[in-house]
């Protein structure tokens, strides 16, 4: 048994889309494999010690709350960069995803700084992109998997030319409603607009993250194989959510 240490950034501020559901899934799925998951809240003014956490989680918030944390996050930027360079994994959803980029440019100059952990920028758009969404990912060569979720964002996120998207949009808007890409992946760091929450109905991604977190804890490059779980309910929830995206996912040209 190995304890996996999760640093949950700003749980008091960024929790709008049921982010605790993602944490619950990580916790249980680790426990069912005999690993304990220790979740530490990293709030305003708290220092980050690189190496201490195996996985960082940042959720989404309302604009006001996101603005409140943005400046504090910048003060944690160096430590987070170092932590990730040393192999820590990270999952950032929605507002948290935007904050991991280089920044957010608002309509009226209300700019928000980001920490540049992901090679992307976000610009405010006029219409919110709201709806069910389905994407196809290939995080490991040859292993194509889908993620189903719900998106609700005004920001248009543009990836740098050499950046790796998290996935290709099958239905829904994705990063900006036109590029056909969703999210961003840089090594063990994943950012996405998909909430719902993301992990209960996409259990494979929870396991992918847990495996990388374990690799960091054990100091290995190779992520360990996790024992499969009976995921019948997860599979059915995924199917329904994917079906919703195919039937009613958002598109601008409709």
């Amino acid at each position, binding site marked *: 048994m190995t304890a996996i240490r999760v640093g949950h950034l700003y749980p*008091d501020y960024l*929790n*709008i*889309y*049921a982010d*605790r*559901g993602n944490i*619950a*899934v990580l916790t*249980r799925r680790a426990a069912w494999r005999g690993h304990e998951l220790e979740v530490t809240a990293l709030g305003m003014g708290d220092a980050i010690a690189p190496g201490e956490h195996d996985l960082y989680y940042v959720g989404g918030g*309302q*604009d*006001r*709350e996101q603005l*409140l944390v943005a400046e504090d996050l910048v003060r944690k930027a160096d430590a987070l960069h170092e932590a990730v360079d040393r192999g820590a994994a990270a999952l950032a959803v929605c507002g948290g995803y935007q904050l991991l980029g280089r920044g957010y440019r608002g309509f009226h100059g209300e700019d928000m700084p980001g920490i540049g952990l992901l090679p992307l920028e976000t610009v405010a758009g006029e219409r*919110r992109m*709201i*709806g*069910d969404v389905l994407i196809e990912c290939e995080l490991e060569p040859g292993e194509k998997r889908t993620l189903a979720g*719900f998106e*609700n964002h005004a920001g248009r996120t543009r990836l740098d030319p050499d950046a790796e998207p998290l996935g290709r949009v099958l239905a829904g808007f994705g990063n900006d409603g036109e590029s056909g890409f969703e999210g961003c992946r840089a090594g063990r760091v994943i950012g996405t607009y998909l*909430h*719902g*929450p993301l992990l*209960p*109905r996409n259990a494979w991604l929870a396991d992918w993250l847990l495996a990388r977190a374990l690799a960091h804890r054990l100091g290995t490059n190779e992520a360990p194989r996790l024992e499969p779980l*009976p995921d019948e*309910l*997860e599979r*059915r*929830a995924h*199917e*329904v*959510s994917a079906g*919703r995206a195919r039937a*009613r996912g958002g598109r601008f040209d409709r």
Partner: protein
Amino acid sequence: MRLHPPLGLEIAAARGVAALSRRLGAGGGTTIPGKLLAELDRGAIDRLAARLATGIAVVSATNGKTTTTAMAAEILRPRHRLAHNAAGANLVSGVASALLGAGDADLGLFEVDEGALPELVERLRPRAVCLGNLFRDQLDRYGELELVAERWREAMSSLPAESRLVYNADDPQLAAVGEPRTGSVAFGLDDPRVARPALQHAADSKYCVRCGTPYDYAAAYVGHLGDYRCPRGHHARPPLELAARDISLQGLEHAVFRLDTPEGSRRIELRLPGLYNVYNAVAAAALARALGAKLDDTAAGLERFSAAFGRFERVEVGGKRILLLLIKNPAGANEVVRTLVDGAPPRLVVIALNDEIADGRDVSWIWDVDFEPLLPGLETLVASGGRAAELALRFRYGGLDGDEIELEPDLARALDRGLELTPDGGELVVLPTYTAMLGLQRLLASRGLAKPYWEQSE
């Protein structure tokens, strides 16, 4: 006075459609005539509204608007002929339908959707507005809470000067809307003994509306509603003109409290459980007072009131009872859970989660509900509705064993399974989201166990 020639024709056409809709079995037709009218001439709504001799009052809130409005109707009915959208059709079209069916009513009493409030305030020019609360709800439909609050602020600033605003001062966002307006009336709860030990997970407006510092709470009652104060002195709960004090919650049956008003105090025994219904009662009392009701009428009306449509309804089914409790967002569902646990924690529960527009297409809110207090006593969850599997996962990852969860997306089969597992003389707790509740009502009506919702009395 110049008559609008088209109005009569439009009304006749719209009324005809409602009758047709019911005849075709398409449902209540509670909004169809209004939709037609809104299509034909939106200005007709203004003119219909102006026909009500004693004016119009509107109630808006994330939670409790149907119950608050129904309570106010119970208080006002002895002295008024009411036009009231009792079946909960609360968009522009639903209010238009209620206006079409107003007959010889003198007072309009309408619950209004949060998003529709600005337009309806402008069209109806109400003489009283009651703002109950703002919770996180259906972000996919309404957008963020701050945005709704901002639109409400604007709407209230365009309200005629002689109109009365009554607002829940326990909600910091609403206090910020209500305080600046002359003659506005603050209501709230004042009994720290029934407060929650801490802010709930889903608490929304917990940062000072002026400076962003987290509020200090002397008492938190429901979600972020309570007695708050900015530690830096920028904002605090305003003094309450009407308040519920000395509150006693009596399981699944009653809530008793003292209603303090400028006219005096009364002991009120509500035939409804839960702190959230005490909020609804004080809101209804404050609104009724703004419309001229006497305290005696208010007390009598509140004590007569039993339940609004689908909110805490009990239905007899062959020696067993079904208890229907609507759930639709974290704050409301938390109160339902708390009320159940304070009563007799159920061993079996049927929960039906749908994701139509009226339910919210984004079902993430179920993960923000504190269902956990139900788990220790729970032996079986029947998960139903279009998103049954997601709901099952919520409980699975909350700690319920997989073999205690039964997945039955079909509503009729889930209800039958629940009844089958309920002992004779027992009560089956069913927690549906909005469209699931409508589906259950339809089902019960088709079995002759309940009246269809469009025939329920006001």
